[in-house]
């Protein structure tokens, strides 16, 4: 059974904190993605990675960075959390040339 696992289901952080969201996939997929999901806005792409140590900006990268040191792990970093980053964060992976995205269960982050 294929799996994408996000490290936390729920997180509460204070404004200004550095926040790490971890995502691990066990399918040996090349492509990994981070999205945020907000009501009425759908899923918006933050960053994606097509290989180890490689990354590309998505549509809303401001305030975020990413790290991909190993193929199976893709981390999203909020350098200095702000209240407007309160959201549901979803990680996904896709095989090279594939069309089906496999998602983690999501991390609901609240910044207070």
């Amino acid at each position, binding site marked *: 059974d294929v799996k994408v696992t996000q490290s936390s289901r729920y997180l509460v952080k204070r404004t200004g904190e550095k926040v790490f969201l971890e995502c691990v996939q066990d399918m040996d997929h090349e492509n990994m993605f981070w999205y945020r999901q907000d009501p*009425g*806005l759908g899923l918006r*792409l933050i960053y994606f990675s097509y290989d180890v140590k490689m990354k590309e900006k998505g*549509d809303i990268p401001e305030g975020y960075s990413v790290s991909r040191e190993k193929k199976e792990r893709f981390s999203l970093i909020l350098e200095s959390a702000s209240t407007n980053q309160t959201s549901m964060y979803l990680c996904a992976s896709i095989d090279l040339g594939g069309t089906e995205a496999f*998602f983690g*269960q999501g991390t609901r982050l609240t910044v207070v």
Partner: protein
Amino acid sequence: TQLLEQSPQFLSIQEGENLTVYCNSSSVFSSLQWYRQEPGEGPVLLVTVVTGGEVKKLKRLTFQFGDARKDSSLHITAAQTGDTGLYLCAGDFYSTGFQKLVFGTGTRLLVSP
């Protein structure tokens, strides 16, 4: 930014009714997918359409890809309460040589008994 617009944003119907959800873009996609998302979970793939004009059926769900590969529709026949959820379309395209998956704004469906 590639934009996928879905309509309607919200749909509330009675069990047994039919409905159609639309996904439109000004961009051409190499493939288009439909996902369904339950509360507290990530989206799960329902279907992928690749060829312009393609029609796929999944039990009571019928998916169509526009001839120009810019739009798609999802039709549900005789909706059931179990169809309740958030439906998302997603377009697959290659940006500067890298595969990118862009999602629509979503349609929240509520089917009441």
